[in-house]
């Protein structure tokens, strides 16, 4: 039997975080995450943004937190810090911010002076996240998603959760400089599958893969 060990940890190398979606070369390190580092001039592009901070918060559907966040279910809006607040469920929000800022986001949420119990869970590591930008995005999604993504049913600044290629996926319409763009995130272990399906479906639409930095965030 081994000696009882009480010594602290030995010095460790800086840990490297990996996305569930395989990176493509060349790669770079962003906030401790290994990311794809390339650009694409395709008119429709897919990027792995899994390193982005994703903070999940639960509270009552129409309580103090809901009022403080001022984002209703099925809506998405950016706050003063540039964090995208998505109304991802009834009494449930997913906040998406720059890589490495989950602690800050959670801290700000905790600091909100709301008169109800809220639950904050950092799901940065629990969700795979991609961005699909470009004209063919909705056409492409029509092969994997049954929901009507027409302008009148899902304009910019809205979100919903549905089945995408048979994976439960949060879909956020978050246009970039007037170009139609979607964020899609699902639980992490299905991320590689989901990204691969989008890539395959995108082949017919000339889908390009761009890196983390090139996708804007």
């Amino acid at each position, binding site marked *: 039997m081994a000696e009882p060990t009480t010594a602290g940890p030995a010095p460790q190398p800086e840990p490297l975080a990996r996305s569930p979606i395989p990176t493509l070369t060349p790669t770079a390190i962003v906030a401790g995450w290994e990311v794809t580092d390339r650009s694409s001039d395709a008119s429709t592009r897919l990027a792995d943004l899994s390193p982005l901070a994703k903070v999940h918060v639960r509270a009552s559907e129409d309580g103090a937190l809901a009022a403080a966040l001022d984002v209703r*279910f*099925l809506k998405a809006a950016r706050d003063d810090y540039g964090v995208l607040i998505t109304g991802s*469920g*009834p009494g449930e929000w997913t906040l998406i911010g720059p890589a490495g800022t989950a602690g800050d986001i959670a801290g700000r949420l905790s600091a909100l002076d709301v008169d109800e119990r809220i639950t904050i869970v950092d799901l940065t590591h629990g969700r795979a996240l991609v961005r699909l930008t470009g004209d063919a995005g909705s056409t492409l999604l029509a092969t994997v998603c*049954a*929901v009507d993504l027409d302008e009148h049913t899902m304009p910019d600044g809205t979100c*919903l*959760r*549905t*089945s995408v290629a048979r994976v*439960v996926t949060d879909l956020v319409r978050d246009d970039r400089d007037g170009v139609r763009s979607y964020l899609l995130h699902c639980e992490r272990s299905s991320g590689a599958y989901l990204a691969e399906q989008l890539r395959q479906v995108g082949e017919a639409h000339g889908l390009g893969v761009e890196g983390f930095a090139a996708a804007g965030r």
Partner: protein
Amino acid sequence: MITLSCPWCGPRNVTEFAYGGESGARPDPATATPQPWRRYLYTNANPAGPVTETWLHRAGCRRYLVVERDTTTNEILAIRRPGGAPSTSARHATTGRATEQRP
């Protein structure tokens, strides 16, 4: 394919939802005797016509819903949140739960 108009998410394909069976009052387990308890476990009204059921919007808002549906046409007559509605049951947990897929 029928659609269910989720009170939270709007109309969605039925394939996004999980069917939870007929709603029914749960006897008080502390005082229940076998006969009524097993009636609760196993017997359904199974009407040909309107029925009140529990559904889960599994691929959407993850809310349990109270659905009134005509079983002869599958027409959805009403759909609402469980709050304030008659109590729905969580029974039949093992029914349809395949032992197949155990690791």
